[in-house]
């Protein structure tokens, strides 16, 4: 009992609060929990508060479902929590934060690549 108690009451030197994804689920079935935790904790370890969840696999209707607790998100951001990159991207797509630059850049690159493929596809077809 003493061992588990000392494991649970871990104190860190430095570190900061981070809002990130904690992976759960089973084999070939990931599931993310959006979680506010210390940066030095394990990814799936003890967290301060769960602020939402994300199902990365699309459902029957082709949607990727995510849930967010905006009230508590505002609180933690006001307390000075950092965000991980995927968390930032998700919040940007959700509309709570501005869109992440790499989302826009990725979309642009994808569009350009598709255009190039289309041109390459039409150019040999023309002969």
């Amino acid at each position, binding site marked *: 009992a003493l061992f588990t108690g000392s494991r649970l009451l871990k104190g860190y030197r430095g570190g900061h609060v981070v809002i990130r994804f904690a992976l759960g689920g089973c084999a070939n079935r990931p599931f993310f929990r959006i979680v506010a935790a210390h940066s030095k904790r394990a990814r799936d370890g003890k967290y301060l508060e769960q602020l939402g969840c994300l199902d990365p696999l699309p459902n029957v209707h082709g949607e990727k479902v995510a849930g967010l607790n905006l009230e508590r998100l505002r609180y933690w951001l*006001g*307390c*000075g929590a950092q965000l991980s990159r995927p968390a930032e991207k998700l919040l940007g797509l959700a509309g709570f*934060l*501005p869109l992440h630059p*790499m989302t*826009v*850049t990725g979309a642009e690159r994808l569009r350009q690549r598709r255009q190039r493929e289309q041109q390459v596809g039409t150019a040999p077809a023309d002969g």
Partner: protein
Amino acid sequence: PGWFPRVVPARGRKSRHDPPAKSKAGRLKLPPPVDPEELLVVLERYRQHRLVLGALRAEFRAEVLQKKREERLGREDSAELLEEHRRLMAWNDEENARQRARRSERLRKEAEEEKRRKLEVMEKQAKKMEAFMKEKEKEVLQLQEEAKSFITPENLDARIEECLDNPRNYNFAIDKDGRVVKRTVLS
């Protein structure tokens, strides 16, 4: 397909002290190619994004502080807290008054005790002095009385004559009670 199922995954099988494979001997690792104009665009987007993010964080922080302040100060205006505070203050005042009364009583009693004791002591002292003075007076008077029967150079001759005229016999015995035994023969 180029891959085949492995019993143990290859990644993580080699530790950092194992030498790289011979197939990787001529490998030249280059960073990914970067388009300069895209890079500028991306940097500008990042700058603006960070600006907006900083502003949002500041706003959220202000919100949290406001909530904390409101929770800390807003409670004072509620009626029940004020009433409880007044009640407690009144009780405190009562307690203070009671303690003060007790204390003043105690102090008064102690002062009286002190005065009484002092008076007693002074009386005793006065009595002692009186007794002493009386003793001394008595002694002085006794001495004066005795001084009348002293032998002075003027009385000397008369007293000598008187002694020689009245021979006194001290040759007697005394029993335990102090009475003179009258059975001895006068010498």
